[in-house]
């Protein structure tokens, strides 16, 4: 335990980096994912195709492969993005594919009759989506979106492999020095667990708030 207590500041800096990565990656994933979800349910065929290709690509490429491509591949093409930013961008890209599918699932959970009725009273596509479909769809999205958040949080540990000094990376550094792998990684694991559980709790409350009394 003395390893953790003596180096708590060092570890907490890692926790901060992990949280920063997760939040930035998740916010990016939400923005991109929402955009592509709208593409995929929208009436414009080229956008739908682009949305499908985007999702299939980023959903099926391993994050570590993506990280290596962005961090070691792009500089050969003349684009060097700092490590932290690279990791955040990769998390956002990879997460956005899952956000997009979570949103699409939520939208598809609203019965077609709702959309037809809204169209029948003369609402435009944007109005149908904004006033009728999305408010009902949000409730079905909350848990899948929490899952994506937890996914992004846990995936952020992969950034340790490519030099970002987040929690896992710092845990490895401590273990190098003290050879206390079990204690060090138990601590790191507990932190991830705590953040993930908190996210789950927030999601649960949000879901209850959004619940529609039918």
């Amino acid at each position: 335990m003395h390893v953790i207590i003596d180096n708590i500041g060092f570890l907490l800096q890692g926790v901060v980096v992990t949280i920063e990565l997760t939040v930035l990656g998740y916010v990016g994933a939400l923005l991109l994912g929402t955009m592509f979800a709208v593409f995929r349910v929208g009436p414009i065929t080229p956008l739908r195709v682009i949305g499908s290709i985007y999702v299939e690509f980023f959903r099926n490429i391993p994050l570590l492969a993506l990280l290596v491509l962005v961090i070691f591949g792009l500089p050969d093409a003349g684009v060097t993005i700092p490590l932290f930013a690279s990791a955040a961008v990769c998390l956002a890209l990879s997460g956005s594919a899952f956000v997009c599918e979570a949103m699409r699932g939520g939208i598809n959970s609203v019965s077609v009759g709702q959309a037809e009725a809204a169209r029948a009273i003369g609402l435009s596509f944007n109005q149908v989506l904004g006033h009728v479909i999305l408010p009902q769809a949000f409730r079905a999205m909350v848990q899948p979106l929490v899952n994506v958040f937890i996914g992004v949080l846990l995936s952020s540990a992969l950034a340790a492999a490519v030099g970002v000094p987040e929690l896992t990376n710092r845990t490895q550094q401590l273990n190098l020095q003290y050879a206390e792998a079990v204690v060090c990684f138990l601590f790191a694991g507990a932190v991830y667990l705590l953040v993930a559980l908190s996210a789950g709790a927030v999601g649960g409350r949000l879901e209850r708030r959004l619940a529609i009394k039918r």
Partner: protein
Amino acid sequence: MALLISGRGRRAVALATVAAASITVLAACGNSSDAPSIDGIGAKAGASYDKIITSAPVASAADVDQNAWAKKIKAQGYLKVGGTDSGPLFSIKDINTGELTGFDAGLSQMLAHYITGKDDVKALTQLTITSVDTRETMLQNNTVDAVFATYSITPERAQKVDFAGPYYQSGDAIMVQKDNTSIKGVDDLNGKTVATESSSTAALAVKKLAPKAKVLLFKEDQQCVAAVQQGRADAYVLDQGILLGDALSNDSVKLVGGDPFTVDPYGVGLNKDTDAKPFVNAFLKKIYASGDWAKLWKATIGTVVSGDAPKPPTIGSVPGS
């Protein structure tokens, strides 16, 4: 509103497009001669390497019978080794044959040959990939019999596991871009960004000797080299032998600072609850005396470090061994 109804045909086309696109991207990032490669230096497996292993000494039946740890391995028929298959010069998998070669791998094969007397090099050992995070634990719970993984002997680690050896004394060197003139030695690393492997004690050495350096940890050797070539890091600090090997295959980098600036003794990691340590130490002394240690050094590290094999370090000569 048109919810997307994706027909099978369209999906197949989309998937094919994505696959094609990713292959193109990957191909574009492939190894051209001027691009950093993310793969290691290929080792030379083959008859001559195998002969170095199989011509090394074999323990007498009495020696093995007197040692519970060795007896168990003889009964098992092979040695469970913890290590890596991607460490240039020390332990790397030959792509064609699947055989592990290198200085660490060779020593583990020699030890297995010494105990079992068998001659099929590929079947002498079974590798479990260990990382710096798992080495001590895997020894303690007997997942592996021994760890050969450029395992630096430190007093902290020696509290958890036994170290036979040291069997190799190395030290850290500094790699920079070919045209770099600002870094000439370890003192110049202060204020610079220094890459090193996350599994190496080099990070500790840098922190101690150049406290103002910003250390970047990467998982693999080739990533560190790429970081230097692409300017993410000003320097790369690691074992001199490995850096020399990297510099041979990448002419855009060079080593600076002359002799290594640290002393890094490598030991064989063993479970503390066994009687393995005296047995492995006796084995090391035998191959030192017979010249097999030097032959293996020549065939592995000696391919990048010029000159004759050094004198092997004295067994038990460092704290923790």
